[in-house]
């Protein structure tokens, strides 16, 4: 029963995604929305209730919000709207992590993705004036292929999750200790120390690269401190020549 529900929702979802992706014409978007809603309902119906009534309701609400805003992220035409929908996806994900008791991961998701990366993205989008883009830039490439691959990927994940669920149907209860941050930090800085250090070095290299790109445009002989006002420093560096 569950298998058929999931397969049905995947097929319907792929069709909905294909109809919803920006393909250059508006026809079929309402049908896509309808199909998508049915697919979402089937997918949520396939899940077993998770606990007391309000907890289940909260989970369904967060999950539906995350999925709907994720679909909106790729189906809206205006890039700024896409970015805002993506922000909502991140908030939904963070909410789900909170729901599972992973408070640190939830807040870290919001701080890093929503607070830093997405805001920078929004800057670029807004400064690049999205309304002025050509139509071929605002269209989804290979919409049918993308929808099929997305549904297939989701199917693989869901199969894995459901089979793991059948092995251990009872979720282990979390005690106060497993909420703590210290074990996570200890794990990161002992077992995964090299990965953490490598990631840090990569970020540092990116930072140095950004500084190098900016410094390229500064005049060669001017002190770096005054690079915020290039015209002034360029002139004041050779005052005698100016006076002459």
């Amino acid at each position, binding site marked *: 029963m569950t298998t058929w529900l999931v397969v049905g929702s995947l097929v319907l979802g792929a069709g909905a995604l294909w109809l919803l992706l920006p393909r250059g014409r508006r026809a079929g978007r309402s049908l896509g929305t309808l199909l998508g809603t049915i697919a979402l309902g089937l997918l949520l119906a396939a899940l077993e209730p998770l606990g007391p009534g309000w907890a289940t309701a909260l989970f369904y609400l967060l999950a539906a919000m995350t999925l709907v805003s994720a679909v909106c992220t790729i189906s809206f035409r205006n890039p*700024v709207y896409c970015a*805002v929908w993506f922000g909502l996806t991140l908030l939904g994900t963070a909410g789900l992590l909170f729901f599972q008791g992973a*408070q640190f991961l939830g807040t870290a998701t919001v*701080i890093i993705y929503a607070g830093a990366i997405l*805001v920078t993205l929004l800057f670029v989008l*807004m400064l690049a004036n999205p309304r002025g883009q050509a139509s071929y830039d605002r269209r989804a490439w290979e919409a049918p292929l993308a929808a099929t691959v997305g549904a297939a990927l989701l199917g693989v994940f869901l199969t894995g999750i459901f089979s793991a669920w059948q092995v251990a149907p009872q979720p282990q209860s979390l005690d106060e200790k497993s*909420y703590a*941050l210290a074990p996570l930090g200890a794990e990161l800085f002992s077992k995964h120390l090299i990965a953490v250090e490598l990631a840090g070095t990569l970020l540092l290299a990116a930072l140095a690269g950004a500084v190098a790109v900016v410094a390229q445009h500064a005049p060669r002989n001017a002190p770096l401190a005054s690079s915020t006002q290039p015209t002034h420093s360029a002139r004041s560096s050779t005052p005698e020549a100016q006076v002459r």
Partner: protein
Amino acid sequence: MTALVLKSVVLITGLMLAVSYLILLERKVAAWIQDRRGPNRVGIPLTRVRLFGLGQPIADGLKFIFKEEYTPSHVDRAMFLVAPVVILTTALATFAVIPFGSVVPVGGKPEPLVVAPGVNVGILYVFALSSVAVYGVILGGWASNNKYSFLGAMRSSAQLIAYEIPLGLGILGLVLFTGTLRLDTTIELQARSGVWLLLVQPMGFLVFAVAACAEAARLPFDLLECEQELVGGYHTEYAGMKMALFAMAEFLHMLTASVLIVVLYLGGWHFWGLTGSGNLISWPQALLRVAVFWAKVMLVVLAFMVIRWSWPRFRFDQLMNLAWKVMVPLGLVNLVATATVAQFWPQGWRQHPWAVAGIMWAVSLATVALWALVSPVGSQAQQRRGPDEFSMRRVEATS
């Protein structure tokens, strides 16, 4: 569940009332500093009782509610509507993890005065929500479809993002010392030892307070609304209740910053010889703790207001220089010093707050002195100004 609903209702009602009266307080402080009287007319309606203008917030609120909800035709409607909602929601949601007192004895059991008492990452939660609040500013400025609003939104979000780094760096030393990210535990630690963390982390406090002021976008840092340069700011196109949401969010941000400063550095509800430190307390003692807490918060708020009306606004490059060249290095020095003490202290450094405080003060003063010796304040400004453009033109004209 009942306790949760009750606490939320009390907190939100209290915050809304506090915000409206903070606006009055702000105007009174401004009037006091500028040698005026300030709003003093509105009292009880239909009588001649004036009550020092205490009716002013209610009159303002009614005016905001009944004003025409005007939406200009050139705006992006959906985002125009979403922006004030985002900014106020995040400002309010921050208070879910912030303790507004100690505990109250309900049925012989201590009930913590926090809406969400189980949150383990309280400080990070506050930071996460304050980073989401940036969206309200950016979207408001962008949706207005107005160059000046957009400029204001751009530079203010650059400011908010830049100051999140010193904000985080400032408290890292404190978190190392307390070993927790919970706000209530931080207060309990200070109450038990009797040493407020301002004494232990002087440089961290400086960095955090400046960054919190910038995050709240109070006047020396209020580049997001700048009447002289931007007509109004990111909310120029807003009117009526939407404008009121922005104004409320601004004051809520200030309140958040003040509460965080009190909780983290000024001992929360603790006062020596007055409040005790345990969790088993009677009702009068619980109320006394609440009173002490909010008295401290009000003092910090007053300090914020006096700062606002005493300082001119920073230029954008000064703002960025302060963040990246002053606050970030100071925060790093503070973090490294605290970590060094933690590493090389023989055993149990948290049991000796006075000794740690002595070391940290010595390090702070040494850092400032060294900085002053290596790069005196005046040197950078002189170097940048040089022979200025206008005098050079005059030389050209005369020769």
